[in-house]
């Protein structure tokens, strides 16, 4: 059981890292939220400001 868990973790991690290395599209896909997070926060704050000004 322990060996299976260790193997699963190792294989899964290696597989994901490999995908990240060989597929630029995957990199773009996986990194996108870190930009949209800031943008969305800004949009919401902006909207709240406008609402408060009204």
């Amino acid at each position: 059981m322990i060996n299976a868990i260790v193997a699963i973790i190792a294989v899964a991690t290696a597989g994901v890292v490999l995908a990240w290395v060989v597929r630029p599209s995957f990199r773009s896909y996986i990194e996108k939220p870190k930009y949209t997070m800031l943008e969305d926060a800004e949009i919401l704050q902006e909207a709240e400001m406008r609402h408060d000004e009204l």
Partner: protein
Amino acid sequence: LGESPNDVKPGEVLPKTDYDLIRWHGHAAVITVLISTLFGILVATKFNFPSFMGGHAWETWGRLRYNHTQGIFFGWLGNAFIAFCYYVVPRLTKQPVTSRKLGMAIFWIWNFAVVVPGWALVCMGFSQPLEWAEFPIVVDVFVVLALVLMLIQFVKPFLRVPAGELYVSGWYVIGGLIFTTFAYPIGNLVPELVAGAKGAAFSGLWIHDAVGLYVTPLAVAMAYYVIPAETRRPIYSHFLSMLGFWLLFFIYPLNGTHHYVYSAIPMSAQRGAIIASVFLGFDVILVVTNLLLSLRGSSGKVGGSVALRFTWFGVVVYLVVSLQGSVQAVMPVNRMIHFSDWVIGHSHLAMIGFASFTAAGALAHIWRRIPGARYSERAMNWSFWLLTLGLMLMVADLTTAGLIEGQMWVTRAPWMDSVRTMYPYWLTRDVSGLPIIAGFLLFWVGLSAGPRNELRVKTQRSALQTEVSLGDDDPGERSGLRREPSILSYAYVVAFVAGFGFFLLSFVVLGIIPAMQLQAEINRTAPHDMQPLSASEQRGRIIYGREGCAYCHTEQVRSIDADVRRFGAPTAAWETQYDYPQLWGTRRIGPDLAREYDLRTDDWHYTHLFNPRSTVPDSIMPGFPWLFQGSAAHPTGEASDLVAYVRSIGKDRALAGAVQIVRSPGMEMDGDDGSQGVPETRPRPTMMGLDPAAVLLASAESPDPAHVVRGRTVFLHNCSGCHGENADGAGTAAGSLLPKPVNLHTLHLSSESLAAVLWDGVYGTSMPAWRELQKDDLEDVTAYVQSLQAKRVGDALSNANLVAAKQVYAAHCVSCHGGSGRGDGPAAGALRPSPINFHVNQPSTAYGLTVVNLGIPGSAMPGWKNNLPPDQIQSLVRYIQMMYGNDKEPTSP
């Protein structure tokens, strides 16, 4: 960027943040952390001043200890996490939370159906003696209800967010809430339904899941949100953050059993948990590296923003405490530091240094953005430094203390030596709580005072645009991929399936499978005639749990030399098969009680419970006077039940004798030779006051004065509670003990007699065994005691008186004391305490006369005042005195 942050898509309704609920939960968090920290300081104070606030049940150590940790867990961190969710969920999902009314319901349930009643019920004596699950089950119902409502409130907005668009903080929020909703009822209820070692396997799961899958995900979610929001720069790598997220949720649930290393839980589960713990350390390195790299180029802002500084500090401590956790799970380290103050330092580092600092950073970040809210940066700054000062002092102190404790437990030093050594460390820990509570108080000032927030979004937005546009990240990353979402691409589906799957995996691997192995082990090894606890013992067990006894006294002897040598045979799985819930414990302040069966008398226990320092002068155990009617001699039914339970712990193991245990696969212990018999450390009832196994003490018939002085010191620390500071048998405990402690000025004991008494105690009296004491200490005590009453010589009896005395002795004393006066008469075997052996114990004339005239209450020795004339009693006493040191029958000169 492709599109401006100002662009709002047609038809898109922007959510509004419910700042009222954020404020409510924010203030509730700070109020409850102040109360919880006060509980902690009171608990810490009781270590050095155990009688402080000790007169009432509700303010006893155990109940305050329960409320301290549960208050931090639910009140402080719970409210802070909920406040954070109200702020972050609309920003991550572009959806409002489900309902304001639902939010109000969650607020009221969380604070007024969980925290406040939980505290009140614990103070009233309704609790559950399980780590991180101390609130009673009735409160658990509301916790689960609140968690379900939180899923509806916070997870529902994620329903329409594709997985590829969800920021890592959202993943942690979803994962943490889903996992906790499953794990909480399991961790709280299963140990009540599954007994002993099997229940402990599930307890271990929850102990770790509470910190690892509730506190950690939400704190990491905070860190991942606050750092980019404060620096106005995206995190270093979202890929690494997601890798860290999945590894954490996969590995963390498998850690649980590392709280029971060297226990009766199958070794395969223990090793699995240890390996998972080491893996977890690597995962945290990944997460923290990513978070700290997210500060690249913005490190200067850490000094300028208190919110960022709190978060940064929390992240650094997250790395430290996680690596510490990985190391202390490893067996060679675990055997040394487990149960010690090291672990308490570790948990404070985790809950204050990591979780509380991160939560404080998030609250500070949010508060500055609440329109119209007051916020004082100055107060926050002071708060940060005070909390840092208190935390560093506390952790350094407890870590050092734990190392010393662990080392002392490995040696043969008496248990009480480890307690005495800890006094200055516990005092320092108590003092370190003061800057911490002051820090939290100033944190509240920071949220309540200072200038009101202004609308300053425009300035911040321009900064965002500048920094993002000047970023050195690959612009191609930002475009992302446009895909048609399938059901599996929605974050909530992925998180739910994975969260539930990981929960199920840990439940099976560390709960179900070990429980099945344990059941097979129990079936194979349990005595067929093992009886459940009696009704009285069962009631006593509930009181034992209610008063927090299991939080100082473990009930498990681990399979390591230090434990076995000190306490006895390792705890086998079958021993606790009727324990609902298990009371193994995770901390030792007092000694382990797994082998307490029949070691001490009821009197001793009553006296000890009423005022522990009356029997153990240097004890820090709280007294339980509310279990008595005014004195130790008048126990209530609850005291009787509690003593009945304590005296029963380990009964079946003791009665089973030395049995060979053939362990089933997965149950093997390191260094286990298969012989799990009753240990040599267990005192045995002795006959005639002599035990051939007793340690040989150097003869102290003419004691060295230096030994006498040292012996008095040892005596004062260990014996004065019963025998009195002057060794006159008038200690504070004496009033409630029968037979009374001996006035050592009235009895001369030989070295061999003292050796047997100190080695085995005196069965049938409250005199315990003192095998823990070093041989030097035993010899010094012997020297001191022998210096109090010299051997009497001279004053031989005339021939006529000698003959008369012999006749009286033969007529009235032989049946118990034996024909030769060695305490081996035909009736002696049935008597407890055993009749005295006059060849090694010589009473003074006055004491002899008193005993022969009045008898010894609490023993089989009757008074002869009404049956024998005074001159015969006088001769009899002298005759008895003449036996001392003589192998032959006394003769006239």
